[in-house]
């Protein structure tokens, strides 16, 4: 089951990410049963560890079955003061864009 941000303050949670097949855009699995994908981490579904495997398997099956996304995986993040912050620098950079070009990537449209 996906969680909301209020229930997860400071805990390590997981989100599911991929690259969109047709353009490579970084995407995140959205909340809900219909396996939608969104472009912003703020709109992504968050999972507790135990629920991640099932969601990841479903996301992979959908991504591959519909040729929508590639490289589907889950990553850790924390929610602090309403902000979702990936634990690893790599995922922070994927979620925002290159730190050396803040005019590019998702951060540019923020």
């Amino acid at each position, binding site marked *: 089951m996906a969680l909301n941000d209020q229930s997860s303050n400071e805990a390590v949670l997981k989100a599911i990410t991929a690259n969109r*097949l047709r*353009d490579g855009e*970084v995407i995140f699995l959205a909340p809900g049963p219909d396996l939608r994908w969104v472009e912003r981490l703020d709109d992504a579904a968050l999972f507790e560890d135990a629920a991640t495997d099932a969601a990841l398997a479903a996301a992979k099956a959908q991504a591959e079955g519909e*040729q929508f996304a*590639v490289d589907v995986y889950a990553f850790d993040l924390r929610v602090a003061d309403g902000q979702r912050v990936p634990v690893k620098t790599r995922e922070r*950079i*994927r979620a925002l864009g*290159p730190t*050396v*070009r803040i005019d590019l990537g998702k951060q540019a449209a923020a």
Partner: protein
Amino acid sequence: MNHIAPGRNAGVYSYDDIDRRFVAERVEQFRAQVERRLSGELTEDEFKPLRLMNGLYLQLHAYMLRVAVPYGVLTSRQLRKLAEIGRKYDKGYGHFTTRQNLQFNWIKLEDTPAILHELAEVDMHALQTSGNCVRNVTTDQFVGAARDEVVDGRVYAEILRQWTTLHPEFTFLPRKFKIAIMGSDADRAAIRVHDVGVFAKRNERGEVGFTFYVGGGLGRSPFIGKLIRDWVPEEDFVAYLEAILRVYNQYGRRDNIYKARIKILVHELGQEKFTREVEEEFARLRGPKYRLAPEIVDEIRRRFGGPAFETLTDEPESFQAAKAANPDFARWVAVNVLAHKVPGYAAATISLKPAGGIPGDATSEQMELVADLADAHSFGELRVSHVQNLVLAHVRQDALFTLWTALEANGLGTPNAGLIGDIIACPGLDYCALANARSIPLAQAISARFADPARQQAIGELGIKISGCINACGHHHVGAIGILGVDKKGEEFYQITVGGDPTLTTAIGDILGPAVTADETVDAIEAIVEVYLSNRHDGERFIDTLKRVGHGPFKERVYAAH
């Protein structure tokens, strides 16, 4: 493609109708492959090797397309096309690499066939920029211009391009395979850290021959290439390389990606046994089928043509006057301009390393400016160097001031070629899916710290090379100061090495001590430079002082606060 194969006379090399048809066919093949992938006819596992064969990677933010610049030589028309593609399909810039290629970072899969089609219109492609094949052959960025040149390496790099592109034995090698060629007594192409490094030279009769080093490489297990033959006659150039690749194909490991490069094979077999295997294979191959006939070489050389140099003299009055009147120009000439083999000309390095800038990046506007300058001052031709700069190789000395003025006005006049600000840096964790740490911000911080051109010139030759992971795309092992980004429990740290050398006196750097944070790394570089300056004798380069005084004083100073 006029492929040099047994029984065929390659004859000519240039992009004729056959070449263009071949490249166009590859574009259409890839267009169909992309369509099949998007429709689900191909799985990602099936498609991935096909896209890699066309230079298309998936990186952190998008697809990355690596465009081949064979042996680093471009026409102004081709550079304008790259600028156009950058503007039309990417985000208005490109990144020149340590393999003398160009990468676009924000490419869409669905656009790639159109991009490759546009590249083909100017005789460009993305072949041999990825996958387990013979990659783009690299050479001296001053080829055909350097005063110390003995043999024009482009000719033999082009022969290898033709020979390898469609060679069935080289399509599925155990791993990627990188070859570099130098044609002078100096080494400006890091010959001994390539899978095969070749020095082209002449004997006392003026005949061309080649010295072969094999098994060099950086990455997880750095090795310096071993000399396996000092003289291979020109006619056996292809046969000898074929023999090396056959031995690699036969014995190279395919079960472990970390042990699949030829450097591991050479190391495990030993130099003597590896050489014996190559010589035995060479003895079997040698003969008419693999003979590189002089007429083929002559024809390829002719196809390169040659700039119509005028008869001039060195140091014309106007050039001397401009240097005397403008110290900034004089500094740029002293640092970025190389003597040319033809009197009255010079080779100018256009630094893509402004203080605080991103090494190797150029905007579409900058590419167009350089293309215009190449037309105006260098016969419409330019080069990409493996240290991620551009070169106009044939500039009249009396035009250098005009050239510099235009470069300076557009942020391209930084006088730091070969100095501490001329940093090689891989894309690192800002772009690369393999990286553990960022490289570019560190390069920016270091070049900003040492921004003062006079200070850089006073420090002298000192190459800093930064890699964001152990794959070593930033060549950190051979940096006079090398920096390797590592991940320690989710935090970026940097391991400093000293004493690396990519030139004739090739050396792998030694680790100075424990890894430090990014901020500490910049301070550590400053400390290393201070120790060098306080210890150096007249005329000593950094690596000379390091060799004389040892690591002790440097280590002591860098880790004094720890």
